[in-house]
């Protein structure tokens, strides 16, 4: 079984991965180790989790304007999330994936959802994020 959710494309591309979701904002700078892709903020509920290869879903970003640099380092280290799913678009969060597209030729789609649809994302489900089509296809045991 699969479920299709409509979303708004912010950065195009089609990637898939297992979902890692949180209702807490994520700060890449100081919050995610740029070499390992591990969430290092001890106050975050995802402390210790790896974002590498994940469809990372969180409502909005916070923290320093160094976020694009952290995402670029994660891509170089092959520890980056495969896609970002957000509620609020944020120029700092789209910047990293946009630079990666033009510098490394690597795609990290970024899409936004409303609050209700965001709640459908559950950690461990699999998602195909298709920014260009504006849809997320969820699959996994919950369906």
């Amino acid at each position: 079984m699969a479920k299709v959710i409509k979303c708004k494309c912010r950065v195009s591309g089609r990637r898939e991965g297992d979902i890692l979701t949180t209702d807490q904002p994520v700060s890449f700078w100081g919050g995610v180790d740029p070499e390992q892709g591990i969430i290092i903020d001890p106050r975050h509920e995802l402390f210790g989790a790896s974002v590498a290869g994940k469809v990372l879903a969180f409502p909005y970003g916070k923290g320093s304007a160094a976020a694009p640099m952290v995402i670029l380092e994660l891509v170089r280290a092959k520890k980056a999330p495969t896609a970002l799913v957000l509620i609020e678009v944020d120029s700092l969060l789209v910047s990293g994936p946009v630079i990666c597209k033009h510098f490394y030729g690597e795609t990290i789609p970024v899409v936004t959802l409303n609050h209700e649809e965001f709640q459908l994302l559950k950690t461990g489900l699999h998602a195909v994020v298709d920014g260009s089509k504006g849809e997320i296809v969820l699959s996994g045991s919950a369906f």
Partner: protein
Amino acid sequence: MQLTDTEKEMLDGKDGEAVRIAMSILTDIGDAVEAEEMTEIVHVHTDSGFYLGDAGLEFVEHLANLAGKVCVPTTMNNTSFDLERGLSYGVSQDLFAKIKRTENAHLKMGAIPTWTCAPYQDGIVPRFGSHVAWSESNAIAFVNSVIGARTNRTGDLIDICSAITGRYPKFGLYLDENRKAEVLIQCGNLAENIIADASFYPLLGYLAGYQAGNKVVAIEGIPKTVSVDNLKDLGAAAASSGSVALFHVIGVTPEAHTREMCLKDKDALQAIVVTADMIRNMEEKLWTVADDRLDWVGFGCPHFSFSEFRELAGLIQGHKVSKDVRATVFTSRNIHAWVRQLGILEILNNAGVKVYTDGCLLLFPQNKGKTGAMMTNSAKAANYIYSQAGLKAAYGSIKDCVDSAIAGKIIRRGSAWLR
């Protein structure tokens, strides 16, 4: 996005490959945030020279090798250590070499090696109302709020793209309607001896950041005599507890002559009446030390101003920093030259205070793996030295920090909110 003919040519590669890449990135960001057009930028303060890892370095070297050149005055944010004196305090050769490569790439592109997080203290003051692209949270807050030039929170590496193209997508704080405050912090009930205390302002900023998050905030009840340093400290703290990029001080800052001028919607306004208890509560949040043991007194977050140096020198002249305590100041190259010329540097050296340029208090190499205690006059530093570097923090005025450095233990004289 609607691009002008000139911008379309940039995107098509007519001005070279570096411009094409930079414009492609900016256009994609503009599309993502649904900006309708680009705005022309007249100044950039870039944090792309900050070395986090090889990806960022390779990106700026790539632009420089493609003959990318900045087309507007472009100042550089601080790096992690003092480029002249860093090796003497334990920076590795490897990191030093990487940062020199970063510097060379920027110099090749025509950036100015200011290496400071407080360019506004070096005479970098864009015209009121002009559109700039600044990075570094405290500098963003200062240039928007105190100078009234307009910038969003420009991301690292995006800032250098702006410098190469002279463009940034027009959204957010470039637009009049987004510069009005949705949160009002009222200080009118606070006693005069609180308002007159320099160590009140970082705490007020810290409170404003917690209350406002990423919204524009207005502050009322601050006298016109408030110093530039007070406003600098307020903004730096607000940008560290929240993501405040613009604050208005009613009757003080240039877009807030009156309440009416700077408040968004009276009905939806979130108003907070500040009490002494709230200020004490903010100070308590910053204290993470368990006792009065002291290893380090740190000044210069943001980079120390000339007037802060004068105050520090006046307090410490004729005294010595305890042998068990390290006392350091970070500042810009310009201010360093001024304090050297005026003999202030000699006073500080004689007292055992080390003065560094270019770098950052929070990225001192000896931070790593240390469990010591640092006292500082900066709410931003007290916040991050704990959350990012793992040291314990104590907070106080410049005088408290000096008294503590001399005594070799933490001393905090009672500000009015502590009594």
